[in-house]
């Protein structure tokens, strides 16, 4: 009997506990107890050049029953060893909290410092400042006096919030290396949460236990305790061409999914996408805005005026886009909810992405067109989590017109220079979710293609100058940039910036721009130009560089290795064709070899060739195509090679000899 009970105990214990991997179980050191080893540490072996290392970062999130409402208590104890006080980033000692409407309150900030010689100093309150950063956020700033190399600083604080739907999230990783980071979450069984995990590898500690917590009526209620931890996480640093470093940061968030009532049916908070859609369709600052006509009567009147006599309904989406971009300016904010009503935004003449794009949905729906909002998470905001039906993962909205049997049309009024079916780059992050409670489907949104074409007919003169015509045509998002610049400056200024910027002695004799106002069509520029110094004459040779402009003239990928995937926001195609008449008496001494380079798995291609069309005319062709957006670190080498080769070809020189 006794033996069985012992076995049962073991089984029960091991059922609830996942043993941490041996050797990694850092016993978390209590406040004030610093090990001698840590004090004497002069370098952190996994990253010997760091300015500081987080020795331990321990958080606890407890959802508490506070009588008439729920609250969340977040406690944190963080300890950092500082090797280099001068270059240590003071941002590591900033505690941000939401101060608007007192959503979050910080209490009890304690800070102390330990010196290698064993002294312990409590940091007094006159070294801690509270500052309002902007209307929504404030921060506690800790300034450490008498900081020496080898010092250890630890601080702890409590943060209270009433948001039990989205709990305070926890970043395991930061911009300096972290030796140990863990968070414990205690939630009463009444409230069930989905764990939103972003991790580079398996947790070093992942535990679940049953426990209980004190309820407001004095009784104890069952609760769940979860613990997650990582050891030895490296410092995170951004690399060029990424969506956002946040996609790669080890992090955990908690989203309310179910309320497990004992005396009535359970309430699914995170229910289904259908229910979430229904919720949002009936939300005063989302669905109600486009479903209730009084919210946008004034905007509607203006739209009706803009439509005028036009009767072709197929033109309405474009007119809606034009109307909203004309009367409302984007204020730079990404939102899913409006501030007030759509008409208020119309009166103010500015709005967030929610206001601008819901305005289009409102107008089109009222006009009888099947338009819905599509909720997205911008590139900087991070990836979507389609498996968890909660709307807090979105931070922006675009509009979508559905057409049965055809592919629909996307609309984004935040950039007045973009046509129908083109969004700003931040909105292209894989896709979005259509807000329609009867049909809440995900929509794959592939970014458009940037297409640049240069066609030149030039003559090379004996003095080394090149003169003639070039026609440029650009389509896709890059055309929006051109149009923006043409609005801000003269055609000469824009051409100077966008064509041949590597040649300082480039003169434009005439510039004709076509299609500037036709947003859905490509933009053309026809220029007559002269480039002095396009070629060097040395003895009986002329060395000429015929590529005046291309997609890129300098390699952006300089490092030999890369940790994170490369992500381009757009597909890209660039074609450069130059027909060059040679000066009298000169011939092409040697035809450069043709080149064809393919990226693995059809990721892209590069083509280069020079042909002698006749005795005095040469044609150079340089074509580049990037047909893939994501490149894994393993493919970085070939990607880098691709760019190197492309830049090399932009520097091609033609060798002419006097015959």
């Amino acid at each position, binding site marked *: 009997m006794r033996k069985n009970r012992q076995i049962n105990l073991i089984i029960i214990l091991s059922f609830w506990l996942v043993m941490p991997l041996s050797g990694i179980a850092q016993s978390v050191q209590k406040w004030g107890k610093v090990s001698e080893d840590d004090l004497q540490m002069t370098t952190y072996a996994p990253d010997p050049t760091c300015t500081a290392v987080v020795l331990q970062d321990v958080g606890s999130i407890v959802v508490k029953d506070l009588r008439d409402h729920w609250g969340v208590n977040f406690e944190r104890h963080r300890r950092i060893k500082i090797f280099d006080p001068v270059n240590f980033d003071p941002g590591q000692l900033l505690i941000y909290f939401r101060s608007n409407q007192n959503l979050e309150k910080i209490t009890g900030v304690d800070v102390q410092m330990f010196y290698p010689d064993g002294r312990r100093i409590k940091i007094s309150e006159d070294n801690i400042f509270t500052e309002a950063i902007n209307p929504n956020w404030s921060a506690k700033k800790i*300034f450490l006096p008498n900081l020496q190399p080898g010092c250890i600083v630890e601080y702890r604080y409590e943060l209270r919030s009433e948001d039990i739907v989205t709990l305070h999230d926890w970043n395991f990783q930061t911009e300096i290396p972290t030796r140990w980071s863990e968070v414990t979450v205690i939630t009463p069984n009444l409230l069930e949460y989905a764990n939103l995990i972003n991790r580079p590898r398996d947790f070093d500690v992942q535990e679940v236990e049953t426990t209980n917590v004190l309820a407001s009526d004095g009784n104890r209620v069952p609760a769940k305790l979860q613990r997650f931890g990582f050891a030895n996480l490296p410092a995170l640093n951004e690399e060029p061409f990424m969506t956002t470093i946040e996609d790669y940061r080890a992090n955990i968030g908690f989203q309310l999914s179910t309320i497990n009532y004992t005396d009535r049916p359970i309430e699914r908070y995170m229910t289904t996408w259908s229910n979430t859609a229904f919720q949002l369709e009936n939300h005063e600052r989302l669905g109600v805005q486009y479903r209730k006509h009084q919210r946008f009567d004034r905007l509607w009147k203006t739209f009706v005026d803009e439509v005028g006599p036009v009767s072709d309904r197929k033109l309405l989406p474009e007119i809606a886009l034009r109307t909203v971009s004309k009367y409302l*300016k984007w204020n730079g904010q990404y939102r899913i909810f409006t501030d007030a009503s759509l008409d208020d935004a119309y*009166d103010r003449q500015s709005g967030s992405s929610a206001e601008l794009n819901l305005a289009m949905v409102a107008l089109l729906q009222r006009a009888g067109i099947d338009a819905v909002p599509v909720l997205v998470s911008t590139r900087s905001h991070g990836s979507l989590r389609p498996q968890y039906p909660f709307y807090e993962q979105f931070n922006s909205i675009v509009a979508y017109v559905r057409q049965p049997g055809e592919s629909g049309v996307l609309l984004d009024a935040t950039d007045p220079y973009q046509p129908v079916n083109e969004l700003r780059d931040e909105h292209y992050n894989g896709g979005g979710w259509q807000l329609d409670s009867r049909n809440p489907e995900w929509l794959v949104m592939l970014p458009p293609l940037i297409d640049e074409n240069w066609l030149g007919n030039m003559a090379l003169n004996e003095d080394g100058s090149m003169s003639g015509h070039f026609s440029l045509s650009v389509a896709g998002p890059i055309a929006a940039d051109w149009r923006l610049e043409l609005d801000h400056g003269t055609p000469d200024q824009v051409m100077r910036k966008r064509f041949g910027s590597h040649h300082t002695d480039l003169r434009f004799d005439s510039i004709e721009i076509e299609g500037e106002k036709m947003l859905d069509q490509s933009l053309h520029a026809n220029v007559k130009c002269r480039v002095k110094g396009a070629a060097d004459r040395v003895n009986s040779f002329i060395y000429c560089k015929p590529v005046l402009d291309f997609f890129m003239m300098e390699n952006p990928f300089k490092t*030999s290795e890369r940790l994170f995937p490369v992500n381009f926001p757009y597909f890209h195609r660039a074609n450069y064709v130059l027909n060059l008449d040679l000066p009298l008496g000169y011939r092409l001494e040697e*035809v450069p070899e043709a080149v064809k380079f393919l990226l693995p798995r059809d990721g892209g291609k590069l083509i280069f060739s020079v042909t002698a069309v006749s005795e005095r005319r040469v044609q150079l062709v340089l074509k580049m195509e990037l047909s893939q957006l994501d490149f894994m670190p393993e493919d970085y080498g070939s990607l880098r090679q691709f760019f190197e080769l492309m830049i090399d070809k932009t520097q091609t020189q033609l060798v002419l000899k006097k015959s």
Partner: protein
Amino acid sequence: MPYTKFLTLFWLLAITPLVAQNTSYSCDQIPPALLPFAHSVIRQSETVLKIKNDRTIVEEQRYAVTILDPMGKRESRLSIYENEFQKIRQLKGKVFDAGGTLLRESQKSDVKSFSASDVAEYSDGHWEILEMDHHSYPYTVEFTSRVEYDDFFWGDSYQLQKLGQSVEKASIQLVAPVGFQFKWKALNTQVQAFQHEEDKKHSWTWEFSELGALPSEPFTPYFNEELVQLAIIPEQIRMGEYQGVASTWRDLGRFFYDINTNRDILSPEMTATIQQMTAGKSDAEKVEILYRYLQQNHRYISIQIGIGGWQTLPAQFVEQKKYGDCKALSNYMKSMLKVAGIEAWQALVYAGEKGAPSLYNDIPYPRFNHVILYVPKQDMWLECTSTSNPTGYLGSFTSDRRVLLLTPDGGVLRQTPGMTAQDNVRYSNTDIVLYEQGNATIQNRVKALGEPHDVYREWISKKKQPEIERDFVEQAPFGIGKINRLQLTAQPKRPEAEARYSVETNNFATRSGKRMFVPVNKANPLRRTLPDDEMRLTRLSLPDAFTWQDTLHFTLPAGFVLENAPPAQEIFADFGSYHLEVQALSENKILAIRNIEIRPVDVEAKRYQEVRKFYQDMAKADASQFVLVKQN
């Protein structure tokens, strides 16, 4: 009845001005002469500075600006700083359309607060910002504001216009009790003050009208000294409980000296330590020892509270906390030197790589943002926020400009030492071994003196080797496949640094068929150009001065011979010189020598193209290449 009619008419007339005033914002009314180069036009601007008494000043401002195009967009936002001494009593805005019709007025909730400090800083001041936007151009924004200054006033400078902005009508008025004394100076204008006395108050009014716009052009003297400005500084100034006189630089210096005096008491322990460190040493040695001590044990952190923007924290603060801002660290250094028996003075300076605004002899209008220290007996300047500068070295941050020394006898203007092209030298000795595919091994030894050495010193003090290597790869003008060696060293006592590196690069020369094109200066390109502008209107200012002397040895790959070497290049001008020669030393060795001297440029607009041509000629020469051909 005629009498009633007259009354009605009278009331109508009394009301209409409000309406008439708005329609005057119609964009049709802008005089055509004010449109060229303008992205915005100040339609009318009224600033009234009321000196209520010796403690309180109220500044009221109402101005209307028409924004013509997106480049003038920033005019739609007004930011006003607020702190313990200056409180914003009113901040409102209105938007009018192109025809001058009022579209909307701001609400209190439209004014938003933002922090004024950076991560490593704390200040008890912040910004209040109001933005009035509109969707189509042109449109007009009118701002009305009132700021009250209590216990704080030393003067103000009004910039009547910005680059790319013209002014239709503007006025500045100062109203003060009779007997109020002050000095004023106007730049780039002949305006005189119109005076009027009434009710025991004296007013001075300066009026401006029809100021054409000056375009925003690159490399203008940084402080827009060609625009119309008005500086006002009262004779009596105050900050908190401190009062002073500001009629001359001497007096103003005395005021700042008084605010910052007697804050140099160190603890007995610290005093003893300093005496110990400096016992038996010469004055020069004492400065060196104490400066090094400051550099090695203290950090820069900026905390500004109250008049803390102007008054240093006491020396004991820095002693205990081991950090401080530029004032506190300078004051601390001064306190340590005092213990060692050496006198030093704080110097107020405008710091920045681009230079400093002028200080005028006839009006002590202060334009400073930093404090350094001057040791008169040694004629030495100390940058107390730098943890790695050699003792006495300022660097381009504060060199070659007038500063205000705070001496016990009052303020004295003095010029900090400048560095010429002869002081700022970079020597390099480069060996480039070329291979058949166009790749190369580059070995370079660079010695930098003066300003060119600043960046090496900064890297060494702030970065560790892996970060140095990573940044080196990212900033190199050629692609690096592998770093064999990279070593940076900086001399502790001289502004001198050295970089030695050996790298493998993939694309140094380009191959085409049987030829190889080798760019002579790819390892150290000059890269200095000016955009084309035949109609430049503003002065051109390029303050740097430096000399480069480069020797390059190329080893050709087997099987290649020299087909063509570039001719020697010589360029001479007032602005500098360029010399390049390339010669074959043997069948497979080529030597290139390049000498460049760049002198500071400060010329009127009409010489712009001349300067541009000089840089273009140099860029062309710098792009020289020699061509190799493969022999079968």
